[in-house]
């Protein structure tokens, strides 16, 4: 039953007993040192512990980096203003590798090892969905900044909230009136052939139809595709607007090839900035986007009518007027999404204070206090704009920005209203037991 001819012998090196013992001792030392440290329960004077499930590695790393910066800035602001219920806030970060399996383990680690008060900060939908069961089982309030429709769909559980960023269904619905009125009535969609694209595939046609416009073609592109030219002949000639939501590294090639296909005589282009988050809009190959429009949650570039709160937020997070890191113009932010971290943390503060939150034993109270919230006024805590919150579906609704690419920057040309993105609730989390 063993290998006689060294089938698995990957190398032929000697090993003394002393060396092996040293290795084992080092391994044992590693095992018992940090991971096994016991953390005491938070006391009334102890910090509020927020477990930050961060995408430090994996496909979400660019977002994760900026989510961490925004979180650090928000926590600094909260602590300088007296913390939460007079207690300082401490953020404990764990990397989930942008992997749902690891994500669930990280939630478990926050709940049972770090013993954080809440878990927060997840962006990628599959990680949220993969982690939500662990949060529900641990009865751990889980505040995500994901923009996916999964929270509002009420398919997760009562402990999952998305109070700081609108969901994609709401965003698409809010875009439709502007597209129909300003860009064109015959729309061809190009989207990645996975869930992010499916949200757009499913929600845009009815939203446009309600505005007297129509989707005349839907072109799904496999996520593994690296060249797109062969798909462009599928775009009907009568297309007035190309609605594109390509994401990932291939987006530069996509735009370049689309430019080569159309030349100077192209339909209107409308996209979601998700495609180009953390990417310089002036990158070579993106010239074709000049004059096109994008959805932005929060504007990347400073706008002439920015509120004092918006200016203060940008300064606190450390982004310049072009939406890049102060002192490093090449380090472009994920401005359209990361404001959600700032706003979510202030929602947590408000809900904890409303609940008189003292420690993990008050988590159920925190859930109920969050569900009782209804509106967030625009201001230092909500610099992106005012929001309404539906406690039954754990989802906020807010304004959206439509920006035009001109002169190498994105200028906001239209802001939607909160009502533009409202839809009928699909369920009610408050009927679930705590």
């Amino acid at each position, binding site marked *: 039953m063993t*290998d006689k*001819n060294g089938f*698995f012998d990957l190398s*032929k090196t000697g*090993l003394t007993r002393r060396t092996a013992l040293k290795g084992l001792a080092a391994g044992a030392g590693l095992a018992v040192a*940090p991971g096994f440290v016991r953390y005491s329960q938070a006391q009334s004077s102890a910090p509020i512990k927020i477990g930050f499930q961060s995408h430090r590695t994996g496909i979400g790393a660019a977002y994760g980096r900026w989510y961490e910066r925004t979180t650090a800035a928000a926590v600094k602001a909260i602590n300088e203003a007296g913390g939460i219920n007079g207690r300082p806030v401490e953020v404990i970060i764990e*990397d989930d590798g942008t992997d749902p399996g690891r994500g669930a383990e990280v939630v478990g680690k926050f709940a049972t090892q770090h013993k954080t008060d809440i878990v927060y900060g997840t962006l990628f939908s599959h990680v949220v969905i*993969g982690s939500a069961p662990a949060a529900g089982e641990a009865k751990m309030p889980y505040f995500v900044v994901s923009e996916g429709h999964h929270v509002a769909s009420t398919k997760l559980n009562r402990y999952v909230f998305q109070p700081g960023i609108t969901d994609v269904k709401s965003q698409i619905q809010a875009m439709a009136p502007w597209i129909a009125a300003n860009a064109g009535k015959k729309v061809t969609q190009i989207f990645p052939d*996975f869930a992010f694209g499916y949200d757009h595939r499913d929600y845009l046609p009815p939203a446009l139809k309600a505005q007297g416009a129509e989707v005349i073609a839907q072109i799904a592109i496999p*996520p593994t595709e690296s060249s797109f030219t062969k798909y462009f002949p599928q775009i009907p000639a009568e297309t007035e607007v190309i609605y594109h939501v390509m994401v990932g590294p291939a987006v530069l090639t996509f735009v370049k090839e689309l430019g080569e296909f159309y030349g100077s005589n192209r339909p209107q282009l409308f996209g979601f900035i998700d495609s180009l988050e953390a990417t310089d809009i002036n990158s070579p190959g993106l010239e074709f986007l000049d004059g096109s429009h994008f959805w932005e949650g929060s504007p990347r570039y400073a706008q002439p009518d920015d509120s004092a709160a918006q200016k203060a937020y940008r300064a606190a997070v450390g982004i310049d007027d072009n939406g890049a890191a102060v002192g490093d113009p090449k380090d472009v932010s994920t401005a359209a999404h990361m404001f959600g971290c700032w706003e979510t943390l202030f929602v947590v503060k408000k809900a904890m204070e409303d609940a008189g939150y003292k420690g993990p034993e008050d988590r159920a109270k925190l859930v109920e206090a969050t569900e009782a919230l209804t509106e967030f006024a625009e201001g230092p805590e909500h610099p992106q704009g005012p929001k309404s919150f539906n406690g039954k579906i754990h989802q906020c609704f807010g304004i959206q920005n439509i920006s035009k690419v001109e002169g190498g920057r994105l200028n906001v040309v239209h802001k939607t209203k909160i009502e533009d993105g409202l839809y009928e609730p699909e369920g009610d989390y408050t009927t679930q037991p705590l």
Partner: protein
Amino acid sequence: MKEASPAKAYALHLGVIALLFALSFVLPEYHHGLLARIMVLAVFAMGYNMLFGYVGLLSLGHAMFFSAGLYGAGLAVIHLGWSVPAAFAAGLACGALLALVIGLLALRTSGVAFMIVTMMFAQVFYLIILYFAAWTGGDQGLVVPQSARVLVLGDTSLGLTNPTVRYMSALVLFSIVLLVALVIVRSRYGRVLVAIRENEERTKMLGYDTFSNKLAAVVVSGTICAASGAAYALLFGYVGSTFASVQYSILPLLWVLLGGAATTLGPLIGTLFMYYVVDITSGYTSAYLLIVGIALILLVLFFPRGILGTVRQRWLGWLP
């Protein structure tokens, strides 16, 4: 190599099971939960080891068998409302059937071609999951409702979300698979598999139908991996296409290489080791995969046959 007396081998394995049982009462909460997950994934590694370790067939597509169990059980609960035992059986059946079909096709190749063919089939399986997103949840995956994850035994209802029930369920599955693996590798059939690995032509010459034996091994391996996937869906409540990606075909290979290929306990050791290296090092640096890589290189240098493989080679020749 010395042959262990059956009593010695079984005593060791029962001792490991007893140790895991005892750990349930002393481990801190976090490690208790983590070990439950590790035991489930160690079953995945044991399934992989059955083919890689004992038959010498290196597959790069075992994520599809794990996912067959994961989706077979998960979708049966989500869409059909099946009970936990029925859903688990559905997961096993999906894995076994898939393994039979893949085995019939892939075993026409060997060596590098076998690796490529299994990887391609796994990729097809992965893309099918994405294609039928309306049913599978695509790349986002689906949550198996907490209310459906209840094991009803007579008058007793056991919630699989309860940490103790989950740990014990994982332990029961792990123990059954470990003992089945031990019985197989000590059986005449197990010896035939090793003979095929060492010299297939000679085994044929001795009158054995190597294709049938290899096919049976693929089915056993695929079914064990599916058992792991089905348990993962039911115990942890999530089914997602990430588990069908190539990464999850590579992981069991690493776990088995680390713990010791063709050792019955190696998959557990390898999975345990890898999990804790990632868990501990990720607390210090985002470059933890670099540390994992270095750890792997060191293991290859100093434990070329994996941890238990080297222990067996140097000290305990009787280890099964």
